[in-house]
């Protein structure tokens, strides 16, 4: 079956694509840190961050609409987590409502924190989408390895990337097999079937794990992992890293000044 790519657009070419994955990983990390640590009332700083990430997206030639759509997929989860904050935060009350038996009130500072969480999350998500859609997943893994993420972690990520779609296929085939034999039945019956499917999927994955391990052993794997050095840090990376760092520091300084 055909699947979408996790790292769609990563095979295009632009200044951002050509950067070393390590540069991108580290600058993304610092960008997110800077965004998260900025106090909520500095909207100028957030405007600057947005301008920065928007410029980078334009430079990367990844379609802006695609980035926007992807970011909107994740935002509902953020909203779900943040939605209760305006009700619990103490401070000046903005409005108070009676819902059946309860009286709830919303505070101004609560609302501010709520909007701020959304803004921070959105900016961070944008930068991560930029990272993953300008870097091939395999290069991202190499970058993570080079900045000393434990090899076990990168291997888990690599297997996840490789077998995610294999498992999705398996689930799809199981569902088709179920649907072609399933004629109604009570709800309890349906739940039981789903339970069986999950069990089967688990056992199949476990057995696949054993076969993959055998295939690794057959090619001389002995628990030690070895890799080739194939990333190179260039002038462009130094230039990009330094300039982005300067912009972030500038934002901090401006923030302290006013």
């Amino acid at each position, binding site marked *: 079956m055909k*699947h979408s*790519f996790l790292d769609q657009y990563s095979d295009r070419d632009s200044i951002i694509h050509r950067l070393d994955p390590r540069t991108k990983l580290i600058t993304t990390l610092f960008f997110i840190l800077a965004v998260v640590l900025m106090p909520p009332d500095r909207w100028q700083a957030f405007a600057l961050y947005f301008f920065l990430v928007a410029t980078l997206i334009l430079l990367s030639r990844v379609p802006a609409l695609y980035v926007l759509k992807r970011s909107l997929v994740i935002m509902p989860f953020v909203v779900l987590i943040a939605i209760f904050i305006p009700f619990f935060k103490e401070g000046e009350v903005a409005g108070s409502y009676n819902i059946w038996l309860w009286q709830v009130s919303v505070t101004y500072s609560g609302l501010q924190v709520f909007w701020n969480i959304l803004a921070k999350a959105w900016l961070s998500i944008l930068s991560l989408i930029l990272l993953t859609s300008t870097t*091939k*997943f*395999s290069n991202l*893994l190499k970058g993570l390895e080079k900045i000393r993420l434990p090899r076990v972690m990168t291997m888990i990520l*690599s*297997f996840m*990337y*490789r*077998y995610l*779609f*294999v498992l999705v296929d398996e689930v799809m085939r199981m569902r088709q097999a179920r649907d072609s034999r399933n004629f109604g039945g009570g709800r309890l019956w349906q739940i039981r079937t789903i339970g069986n499917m999950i069990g089967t999927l688990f056992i199949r994955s476990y057995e*696949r794990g054993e*076969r*993959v391990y*055998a*295939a*690794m*052993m*057959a*090619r*001389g*794997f*002995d628990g030690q992992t*070895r*890799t*080739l*050095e*194939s990333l190179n840090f260039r002038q462009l990376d130094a230039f990009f890293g330094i300039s982005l760092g300067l912009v972030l520091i500038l934002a901090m300084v401006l923030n302290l000044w006013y």
Partner: protein
Amino acid sequence: MEEIIRVDNLSFCYPDGRQALTDVNLTIYRGETVALIGPNGAGKSTLLLHLNGILHSDGVVKVLGRSVDDKNLRWVRSKVGLVFQNPDDQLFSPTVFDDVAFGPINMGYSEAEVRELVTRALDWVGMRGYEQRSPHHLSVGEKKRIAIATVLSMNPEILVIDEPTSNLDPGSKWSLIELLRGLAITKIIASHDLELVQALCQRAIVIDRGVVIADGATSHILADKRLLSTHGLAPAQKIE
């Protein structure tokens, strides 16, 4: 003729008590292409897993005159290249290059050597230019070819393949058979695809319920309809 693999009195029992192999004896000589044929569950795959020491049990497996033990596993695995049936198990890396390079890197080759071995192996299977592709976006036929390349890149002396043509359409199947024919290396092919056996192998070994039933020239064995139908390799014969 030089003995390249020798199996003496090999028996194997799975942890659940099922007897998979009983007293198997066979010898493979250099340059041969040998078919290992038998019905589903005959013990073909289990036998193959013994040839490079992934499974071990009673009995002796000798590769190039040395018996396989825990100390020479690495050497054995560089000599006996085992290709698994399902390419999705064999190909576990994010890119084709990483997968083909996995063996040579484990063997401790330098970066330049690894690159050369990978290029050459991909050339052999006609998959040059696929280095940066991701295995889950390839067709089954392409995956099978890459799976063979992942083993050829280690420069093995014996190529051991489990069901190379399963799940392939006739076109891909015959092009894979041509590919295997072109590889000048000792081959052991486990299969129940008799067309493949006839096209490639001079010698065939029939195995059923873990026991070697027959071992001889392919033309001889494939002509014995009675033998084939008793062991699930041809339609059941009418009793006259």
